[in-house]
């Protein structure tokens, strides 16, 4: 049984903050396929197209028939723990600082034997479920969990090291005015967040959600306007050092593509909020968050961007908005790379049309604030980098993964008019 995680004590100002260290990052190109699957929380292995043999470690040719047609497929994650060890010494600082550390050898039902991290409740010869997660180097690692849920199992230190669990963490949600904010705050509170800061722009105009937010336990509404550099710097100065998870849900959205508008006003505002807002937040909050990724139970752990799935491929009815999200997505990739050395994780949550005023003329299905909140919390608990909320987002992503050029044609048909 896992010892439940205790809330962290107040920080001792006389003790040096532990510098972030990282597990090994080097991987072959083939092994990056496992990391790509881990970014989405999937357990996938290479399967041979010709003979069907399941491969591990990742490789470039089938060890059964020499075919080079190996395809990553979601794979049965059940297995049996053959052997285990508790590592007491390691030449890698990251592990040295975290010993004892358990690893094991698991016979997968799917065929291969894997070396993996072990959840504390796994027992020798017991049945296990393998999960594929990103470690603090941002690369995939496999972790065995007991096949039967055990109490407080999410508090296992090795599991927590791979995830961005909100429990006992202090979280900033950037935009109180977004219709999804209350639900996100509630879900994070339910998931054990210790403090939820919510940014409110333009305090000189009313906010329909303010009263509900202010009434919530653990919620503190603070002035923040992501279009105003000074405002972002001011809030980072106040709470940057205790922001463990930042959730950027600021969004400016107006319908229309290029020709539907006759000027760049809305497009500028879209870029100001959706793109430059992210940049301003990153420049103010990023460095201090990146310095605190080894700071105990409530070390900083994740940066979340809520984006439109049309960041992947334009939705012409919202063409300019799609473009600003594509810009934000591209920026998030740069940010992810820049954070990589610290272990701070960037998670992008992609939504289809949301249930709010700007998508009001669109038919269902639409994403409710509750669904966004649920996907977000699950994504953090699973330590994801990419997650998709709602049927539309998942559908667009599947099509994008299959063939982005086909997707573009599917979404840009002009219809059979004249």
């Amino acid at each position, binding site marked *: 049984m896992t010892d439940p995680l205790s809330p962290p004590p107040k920080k001792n100002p006389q003790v040096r903050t532990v510098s972030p260290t990282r*597990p*090994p990052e*080097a*991987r*072959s190109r*083939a*092994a990056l396929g496992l990391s790509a699957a881990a970014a989405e929380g999937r357990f996938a292995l290479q399967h041979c197209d010709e003979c069907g043999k399941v491969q*591990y*470690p*990742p*490789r470039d040719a089938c*060890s059964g028939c020499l075919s080079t047609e190996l395809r990553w497929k979601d794979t049965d994650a059940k297995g049996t723990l*053959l*052997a*285990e*060890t*508790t*590592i*007491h*010494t*390691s*030449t*890698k600082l*990251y*592990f040295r600082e975290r010993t004892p*550390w358990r*690893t*094991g*050898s698991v*016979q997968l039902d799917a065929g291969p*034997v*894997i*070396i*993996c*991290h072990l959840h504390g409740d796994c027992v*020798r*010869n017991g049945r296990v479920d393998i999960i594929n997660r990103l*470690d603090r*180097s941002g*690369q995939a*690692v496999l972790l065995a969990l007991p096949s039967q849920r055990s109490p407080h199992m999410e508090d296992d230190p090795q599991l927590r090291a791979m995830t961005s669990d909100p429990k006992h963490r202090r979280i900033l949600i950037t935009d109180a005015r977004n219709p999804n904010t209350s639900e996100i705050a509630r879900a994070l509170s339910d998931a054990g967040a210790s403090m939820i800061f919510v940014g409110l722009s333009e305090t000189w105009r009313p906010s329909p959600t303010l009263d509900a937010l202010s009434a919530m336990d653990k919620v503190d509404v603070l002035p923040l306007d992501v279009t105003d550099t000074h405002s972002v710097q001011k809030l980072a100065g106040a709470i940057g050092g205790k922001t463990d998870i930042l959730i950027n849900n600021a969004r400016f959205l107006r319908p229309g593509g290029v020709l539907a508008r006759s000027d760049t006003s809305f497009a500028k505002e879209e870029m100001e909020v959706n793109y430059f807002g992210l940049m301003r937040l990153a420049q103010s909050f990023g460095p201090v968050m990146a310095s605190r990724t080894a700071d105990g139970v409530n070390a900083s752990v994740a940066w979340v961007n809520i984006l439109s799935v049309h960041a992947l491929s334009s939705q012409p009815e919202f063409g300019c908005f799609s473009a600003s999200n594509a810009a934000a997505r591209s920026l998030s990739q740069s940010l992810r790379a820049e954070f990589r050395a610290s272990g701070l994780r960037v998670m992008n949550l992609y939504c289809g049309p949301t249930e709010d005023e700007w998508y009001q003329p669109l038919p269902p299905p639409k994403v409710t604030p509750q669904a966004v909140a649920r996907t977000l919390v699950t994504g953090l608990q699973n330590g994801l980098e990419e997650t998709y909320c709602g049927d539309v987002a998942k559908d667009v992503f599947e099509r994008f993964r299959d063939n982005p050029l086909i997707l573009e044609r599917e979404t840009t048909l002009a219809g059979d008019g004249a």
Partner: protein
Amino acid sequence: MRQSYDGVVLCAPFTTAYQRYSIETAHWWIARALKGSLDLAGLRPSEIDGFTVSSFTLFPDTAVGLTQHLGLSPRWLDHIPMGGASGVVALRRATRAVQSGDADIVACVAGDTNHIDSFRLMLSSFSRFASDASYPYGYGGPNANFALLTDRYMQEFGATREDFGKICVAQRQNALSNPGAVMKKPLTLEQYLAAKPISDPIALFDCVMPCAGSEAFLVMSEEEAAKRALPYARISGAIERHNAHAEDPIQLRGGWSVDIDELWDMAGCAPVDMDLVQTYDDYPVISAMQIEDLGFCPKGEAPSFLRDKDMTIKGDFPHNTSGGQLSAGQAGAAGGFIGLVEAIRQVTGQAGPTQVAGASSALVSGFGMINYDRGVCSAAAVITGGAR
């Protein structure tokens, strides 16, 4: 039946005394061993026409760079990156080269340096599968890998830590007779059992001590050796196998078990005829595995087989007589030569303080390269004393 190794012999075994840390390079250590071996044989560098090298710390050089660095001009050149199997593999290749006339005198050398951080750096670039699928899991290096198979071996066959301790304690006893050994203090079973845990069930004295060192021997025709009045050893049989038993979920046996019958058939003798055994001892469980796979006892019975044996130089089952890697030190790729070079000394009566009385036959076994979860290369040779 494969062609025998008759007519070709091993001589001039040389070991450069090991050091825990060295400021020198692999090139320096290799040069020392090569010179040592040539001096024993009374040869000048220009008189060898074959050269093979094994080393982990030679980067960015290989055997090619060494020819220019050391002023050699061989007509047969090899680089054998097989770690613990390098010695026997070098022996096999060099012997065939001499048999075929591609070379007359081949110097086989292995050596590595050990800087303060070189073990950690070496680990970080060992193999692609290790980088992808082993190091990210605690970065325990070989310790963690062998801990897993030791754990499985103990479960499967009921072996105890005392069984492994017996191997380590005996080797320490042998090392005390070897002035070149890194380990200088006696080791008791109590100390072994109470040692600091490294990666359960592996503790401190199950692990080798990385160090700097080098080893060398020469391969030439029996006539050549006789002409030069060099003591030499003959090769009765030798085997080599890579990536055997890939289907085994965890390594409890090595490639020797595939080729064991051929080895003893070729050698024309049996395990019981051996005067000493040099196993590759990166961890005691691997020595136990070799003792089983090479036919001294059935699978899983090495612990009980060894329980009744005395593995010291003066005992009834002399094993790793120079102290092996566990007590003499683990000098990188030289660890693949330590048993073979010592065995050549033993069967030619040149082992000095570690000499097993009357030794004339030895089994030498090699095991190398934890590419991912297990050692991939295995090799073994039976050598016998020729002229003394």
